[in-house]
């Protein structure tokens, strides 16, 4: 075991370089400036994309950044982590005959300018005296608190971890978003007047009842839990994918990476885990998935990326048991799978074939098979929907004065940063209407 590379910042450094001012200007000039543009519709936060791009073209970078912030306070993160192929760039009218505009990279260009020059949005509203507690400093919570602050409300975020940013800080591979970007974004939210208290866990150091007394309303943006258990023999020897990514961001030099690594799962997090392993020296990285490439949940561009990284795939393969030899991890016993009728997820149900057991050799196994449902729901007695916190159109939970946003309510559709940001924005508007009718 052990990483072959010492310089992990190079191996996991941000994949795409920033656009040069010239490249940005050339790309910005290519934009047609569509009216009621489809890219804006496709963006979950509906950033006025042609407008911010034209402002790059006219070298009005402050105005460009303000245009982005007006719809999305976490533009710097979204510019890096959004699946633009599925969103804005996928809808670009130039996509059919030419190359779509590199919207993500242009947004990053404008956001880099804003963060380098402190060109932050300003608080517009007069102080209302209202106080809102936001639980969790991930993208949804930061967005919501920031929007509330812009409206003049007092927002305090309680974050159980030592640093804000949630998955942006800890759960997104540095290749796509270095930790410093997420932390700087949180500092920007603070500059709007938002208080962020780290190391405070709702239900442990602070009770919900206390918060309800102290604040006019409460917003839960707690995200999801750790990777669920596979319930297979020897599971304790398997590394949690989220912890694996977190370690790669916080302490990459001491991250243990095997020579022959198996990653269980085929979502975007699984691809990230496999990428880390490959880049930090694993000779062979194999992703094991019980369905096929048609059903896998990672984006198509992530799948392409993984293959280019030299990551191998074993489809129709279900983990059955961790093989230990002399107390050391030696492999993963799997069963062959056949696909049956669609299950509750709408995808063909994987049916393990009896007696088809075989062993894939490995000296490290990482699992990235989704996240546990929010445990806070049960703690607070909130109604749930398929395990997620149930909310109405205005993000209100079953408990009056308690709202919920982000991944913890995403019972339908894929969880994503930009959806969390939009939740935060819409919830802030709903809360504003509620508090200042």
């Amino acid at each position, binding site marked *: 075991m052990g990483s072959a590379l010492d310089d992990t910042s190079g191996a996991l450094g941000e994949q795409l370089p920033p656009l040069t001012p010239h490249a940005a200007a050339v790309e910005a000039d290519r934009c047609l400036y569509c*009216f*009621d543009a489809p890219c804006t*519709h496709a963006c979950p936060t509906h950033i006025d994309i042609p407008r911010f791009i034209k402002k790059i073209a006219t070298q009005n970078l402050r105005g460009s950044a303000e245009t982005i912030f007006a719809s999305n306070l976490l533009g710097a993160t979204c510019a890096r982590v959004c699946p633009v192929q599925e969103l804005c760039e*996928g809808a670009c009218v130039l996509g059919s005959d030419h190359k779509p505009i590199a919207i993500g990279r242009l947004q990053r260009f404008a956001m880099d300018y804003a963060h380098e020059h402190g060109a932050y949005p300003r608080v517009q509203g007069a102080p209302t005296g209202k106080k809102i507690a936001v639980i969790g400093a991930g993208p949804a919570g930061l967005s919501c608190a920031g929007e509330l602050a812009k409206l003049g409300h007092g927002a305090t975020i309680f974050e159980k971890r030592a640093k804000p940013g949630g998955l942006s800080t800890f759960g997104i591979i540095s290749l796509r978003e270095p930790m410093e970007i997420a932390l700087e974004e949180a500092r920007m939210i603070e500059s709007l007047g938002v208080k962020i208290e780290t190391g405070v866990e709702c239900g442990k150091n602070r009770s919900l009842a206390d918060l309800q007394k102290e604040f006019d309303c409460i917003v839960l943006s707690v995200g999801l839990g750790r990777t669920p258990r596979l319930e297979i023999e020897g599971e304790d020897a398997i590394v949690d994918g989220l912890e694996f990514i977190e370690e790669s961001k916080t302490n990459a030099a001491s991250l243990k990476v095997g020579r022959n690594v198996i990653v269980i799962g085929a979502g975007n997090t699984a691809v990230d885990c496999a990428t880390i392993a490959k880049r930090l020296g694993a000779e062979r990285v194999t992703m094991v998935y019980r369905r096929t490439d048609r059903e896998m949940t990672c984006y198509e561009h992530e799948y392409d990326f993984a293959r280019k990284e030299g990551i191998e795939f074993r489809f129709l393969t279900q983990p059955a048991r961790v093989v230990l030899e002399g107390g050391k991890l030696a492999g993963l016993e799997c069963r062959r799978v056949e696909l049956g009728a669609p299950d509750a997820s709408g995808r063909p149900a994987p049916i393990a074939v009896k007696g088809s057991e075989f062993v894939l050799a490995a000296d490290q196994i990482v699992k990235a098979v989704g996240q546990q449902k929010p445990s806070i729901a049960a703690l607070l007695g909130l109604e749930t929907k398929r395990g997620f916190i149930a909310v109405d159109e205005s993000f209100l939970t079953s408990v009056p004065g308690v709202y919920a946003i982000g991944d913890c309510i995403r019972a339908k559709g894929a969880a994503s940063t930009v959806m969390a940001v939009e939740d935060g924005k819409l919830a802030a508007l709903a809360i504003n209407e509620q508090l200042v009718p």
Partner: protein
Amino acid sequence: MADLRINFAGIQSPNPFWLASAPPTNSGAQIHKAFEAGWGGAVWKTIGAPVLNVSNRYGAWHYGRQRMLAINNVELISDRPLEVNLREIAEVKRAWPDRAVIVSAMVESKPETWREIVERIEDTGADGIELNYGCPHGMSERGMGAAVGQVPEYCEQISRWVMEAATIPVIMKLTPNITNIVLPARAGVAAGVNALSLINTINSIVGVDLDTLELTPSIGGKGGHGGYAGPAVKPIALNMLAALGTDEIVSKSGLPISGMGGIATWQDAAQFLLMGASSLQVCTAVMHYGYRVIEDLCDGLSNWMDEKGFATVADVCGHSLHRVSDFKDFDLSFRAVARIDESKCIKCDLCYVACNDTAHQCIDLVGADGKFVEPRAYDVRSNGKHDATAMRPQPVVREEDCVGCRLCYNICPVDECIHMVELPSGRDKVTWSQLSKEQSNVTEDWETMKAYRKQVGIEIH
């Protein structure tokens, strides 16, 4: 293969493309290079009075990614000593007997100085002389260039002095910095010059530097108007060319016209020929890309002529002039409407916003169900490329309300997507001239106009 040779007022040239009198024709060495590249002729950078030049003499206008859609300059006439120019002119002409070597001249407005320069030019063996009555900066402050060109009487007087001395063809070059381009041209006709050329550069200030707040370019902190040329001025040049071609006195005189002003491609060249030019001069395109642009100018023009069945340049010359008309003679019953080819449309909706904000409000957004859709009608929670593309409405022209203004056609970024389709208007052919002659009340009184519209079926929403 089309015959590109021309005979312009007796000056022979293997193709109609001459380098205009400007920096590209500053020296013998440059013109050798240009002739090697294939240029048919060159008008030597103006020689004459002694001058001193300044730095930062060229400004430019850029638009988007396109550099130098126009150049602006305060360079004066040749700053090389007269005898050096004259010697090199003689050398070039000796080395290139088949090319047109024309010498541009500008001297003080005295008969003896003009006589002297004409004689010295003729001694070089040059094929012709171009009278620079156009330079808009510097020289005009000293009573030369545009200071002459802007006063038809001066043009005529000086040209008479020149014609008394000259035995080779003389071309009078016109400045566009004048209200009516026809008047100096007529002065040239009266003076008996052999040909005209136009346009010289246009007065211009190219911009102000937003950091220093100085003019661009800044010449030691100052700036001023300079001569404007390049692709952006082409429509102005074409209009002035057409004005000469349709003027009775100028056209009857039969003086050939050397056309210039923004010619950058063979398409531009063909258009100048169609509008009556019989030789063509090029400068800015060469200053941007070098002498090599001559290859496509000739090749493209020749291919186009073959395709159109023009055997010689003379066949093309003035071919479209009879189409130049005045508004009063346009057919008011002509009707065209815009039609969007939905198979090509990329739904950028630029036509929609242009029509609705600034034109005649006759393009609608139509949803998949055939119903009109307002812009940004989608729900705030709708997102993703599938929603954005599947729900995107189609811009459709409401033809009954379309006045055929052609704005959408002009701005559509997709080739061949919007067509202007001629439709029968159901009205009799009539021009404003006829109307004002036959039914003068209609053209003078709104109430009668309204009644007339109702009678012939013109409805303006």
